[in-house]
């Protein structure tokens, strides 16, 4: 393709335009005076004011943030263990099932996972009298599907890992736990961190699983957005989209800058 740089340039321009034009239009229309998407009514910040005064939206966002923090942290811990096992325990009874269980939630259709987890919580409510549907059940559901993403990053990091460092620590008399905490963990920390970030983002964004397990009292941000968007285009959602895109872009830029500085 080096002989035809024009073609490559055209392909990339088209691809990136396809990816970014829709987001650009949404950002542009968050500053639209008019309520309609089809009409440009002049520059205005009024929808920004409306959204930032929208109590229901703000409390939903707060709930989503708390769930994302809890579930990403739990998923990072369990995913770290799962990734470690996948990379370091080649043989134990049930190894094949273990592998399928870890990867499974990643490729399972979300509606299927949603209905199955709801039935589990309904069943446990019947038999054990809890947990009440809400924060806890949503956090458990999000943790369950995020484990896979952390485990895969951790496993990949451990696969190209210099094991002589661990062996040196063991030879010098460190117990397996001490070796793990002082040698292995610091070296794979970036992988755990990016897994945590991925789990955090997935949790913040999840609608389907949440809708199934949320119960009647809890409303997360995606649930609010969905119920408003179903009725048509809403300028407040354009503002929310703009905030999310700017946040995501700056987070990625910072993490990209950090990894480059380290390398």
């Amino acid at each position, binding site marked *: 393709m080096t002989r035809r740089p024009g073609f490559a340039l055209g392909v990339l321009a088209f691809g990136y335009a396809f990816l970014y034009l829709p987001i650009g239009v*949404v950002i542009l229309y968050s500053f639209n005076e008019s309520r309609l998407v089809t009409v440009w009514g002049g520059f205005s910040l009024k929808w920004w004011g409306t959204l930032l005064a929208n109590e229901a939206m703000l409390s939903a966002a707060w709930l989503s943030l708390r769930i994302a923090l809890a579930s990403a942290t739990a998923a990072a811990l369990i995913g770290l263990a799962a990734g470690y096992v996948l990379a370091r325990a080649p043989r134990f009874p049930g190894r094949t099932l273990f592998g399928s269980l870890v990867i499974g939630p990643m490729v399972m259709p979300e509606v*299927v996972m949603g209905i199955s987890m709801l039935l*589990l919580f309904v069943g446990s409510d019947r038999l054990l009298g809890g947990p009440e549907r809400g924060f806890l059940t949503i956090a458990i559901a999000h943790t369950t599907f995020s484990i896979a993403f952390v485990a895969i990053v951790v496993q990949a990091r451990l696969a190209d890992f210099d094991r002589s460092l661990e062996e040196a620590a063991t030879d010098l008399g460190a117990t*397996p736990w001490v070796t793990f905490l002082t040698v292995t963990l610091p070296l794979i920390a970036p992988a755990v961190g990016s897994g945590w970030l991925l789990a955090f983002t997935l949790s913040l964004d999840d609608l*389907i699983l949440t809708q199934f397990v949320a119960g009647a009292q809890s409303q997360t941000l995606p649930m609010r957005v969905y119920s408003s968007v179903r009725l048509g285009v809403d300028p407040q959602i354009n503002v929310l989209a703009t905030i999310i895109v700017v946040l995501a872009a700056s987070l990625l830029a910072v993490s990209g800058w950090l990894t480059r500085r380290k390398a």
Partner: protein
Amino acid sequence: MRFVIALPYAWLAVFFLLPFALVLGIALGTNDPDSAPPVALGFSLKNFALLFTDDLYLAAWLSSLRIAATATAITLLLGYPMAYAIARAAPRRRPLLLMLVVLPFWTSFLIRIYAWMGLLATNGPLDHILQWTGLTGGQATILGTEWAVQIGIVYAYLPFMVLPLYAALEKLDPGLLEAAADLGARPIQAFLTITLPLSLPGIVAGCLLVFIPAVGEFVIPDLLGGTETLMIGKVLWDEFFTNSDWPLASAVAICLLVLLVGPITLFQRQQAKSLERRP
């Protein structure tokens, strides 16, 4: 080590494996609107029989497969040249180009689909462009058609296609192509005999990563499709939330799972192989 294995194993067994047994159990029961939850346990196959005899459900299965397959093919046609161009770009530009592909994935899925609602609406920006070119001869509504659903799937899942394709293409040794050219192969011949076969693992992984979730997709057909766009994920959702028919919704879930077991196993096997191949 035993504890390290036990923690994820127990969590996933309780919260991922056990629920499927419950879904199967409920699917064999019958709908009982008067009790809470609305299920009468039992052993009847009538929910499954309904799914395979009723025209509406059959149509939903077929159109889910058709829409997912078409959208996967379009995503591949769009994603392959992109991945190729990124893999052949100057090495110092590649991280930025890749990040630009991944960035939309970090923003909200729901909002990315929402963005298309405005774009595809009657008298929306795309309609204006189409009217201006005169291709459609007057107003054209794309929102609410199967086309809108296809566009939504391609848009939402493009990063999942580009990343595995890039991973496969980046490893390709340019020396192979030079050798082919030196031996007199035309570029298209070199592409078909060298590049394409060597990137096959990436093609398979990318297609599965798009196809599997697309079959069970709910948000995209719900927001961009119309009443006549039938997809099985939406059927499950409606049976559950609108009709409160938990047993029927469970039966749909079981069938969807059985349908996707093949592709999912294929994906898992490839994933395991690609991790083992690393030194």
